[in-house]
């Protein structure tokens, strides 16, 4: 039974792993930290999995556990010596996909987002995932009006960071 559960969980996680990677990408700056956070989210997901019921979508459920782990549970490990600029590496790999200006803009944008605090990052994350304000507010535990107001403020904040 337990093996079956383990198998179904790993299969699901493998399929939806990108969600976790995206959370890690927003909340960490280097590969080690990324892997640490991925590991921790996986453990939290696995611990909560027996209580997961099919009525919610697995991905929706993952958003919540993933963000909660990043915001509240994860303790940044001590070995966060900044080895590489994460955003920089990724963009080098994908450079050919973009024209220069767009690439440059994105790079700056990711840097700007990394400067936001944990809660703001969570809002940006859910926004980028095309979640509506109802779901954003339920995930974070704030009212949807406040979520909307805060999101607008973040947009303004990003504008100021980008165009000082």
């Amino acid at each position, binding site marked *: 039974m337990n093996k079956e559960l383990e198998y179904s969980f790993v299969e699901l996680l493998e399929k939806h792993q990108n969600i976790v990677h995206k959370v890690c990408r927003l909340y960490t700056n280097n590969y080690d930290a990324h892997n640490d956070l991925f*590991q921790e989210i996986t453990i939290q997901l696995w611990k909560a999995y027996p209580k997961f019921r099919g009525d919610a979508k697995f991905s929706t459920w993952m958003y919540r556990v993933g963000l909660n782990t990043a915001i509240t549970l994860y303790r940044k490990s001590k070995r966060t010596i900044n080895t590489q600029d994460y955003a920089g590496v990724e963009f080098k790999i994908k450079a050919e996909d973009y024209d220069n200006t767009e690439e440059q803009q994105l790079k700056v944008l990711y840097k700007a987002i990394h400067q936001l605090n944990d809660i703001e990052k969570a809002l940006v994350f859910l926004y980028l995932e095309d979640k509506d304000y109802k779901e954003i507010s339920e995930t974070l535990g704030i009212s949807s009006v406040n979520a909307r107001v805060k999101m607008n403020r973040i947009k303004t904040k990003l504008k100021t960071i980008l165009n000082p």
Partner: protein
Amino acid sequence: MDELDLLKKDWNKESSKKKLSVTDIYPMLQKKSSSIVKTLFYISIAELIFWILVNSIPYFSSDTYKQRLEDIYQNDYALTVISIISYAIILLFVYLLYKSHKSISVTDSAKKLMESILKTRKVIRYYVLYNLIIAGLSLIIGFYYAMHNNPEISGKLENFSDKQMLIAISIMTLFTVVFVLVIWLFYKLIYGFLLKRLNQNYTELKKLEV
């Protein structure tokens, strides 16, 4: 165009790079979590044990103390009641701690989750506070008892001038205050360090509600 809309275009593209296989994920399930809640849990267990040990070490380490305690308990009904109450209080704290730990759920909203964690932390804080107060009271009662019932000390005290008496009381007070302060600082440090980020994020969420 909105800056974030530009990002949205890119956001879902980057899936191919970091792809873990099923065999990569399996070993992760066996790894130990390093979450705040887990650390908090271990620290609270350590604290429970620490204070129980502190209270029982004299009993086991000194035969004369044990003998005296047993004499007292035989003669004094009130002391037996007090010790039963104090064990009941420890049990109550264990129960509260267990209950608040159980209520921490990673599938709650971020705010609710943070509240549950901070509530658990509060239970531990009350436990520590309770022990500090008891320790402080015991020190004071101990001094008082020594002054009145120990012939050697009370004999000496009778010869004290007012000034000497004042100094003696000041030293005892200072001792008690320093003792309590050191422990309090110790806790501030542990939990301050551990929960700094959590507190920051919780305040940030709270601010949104105003």
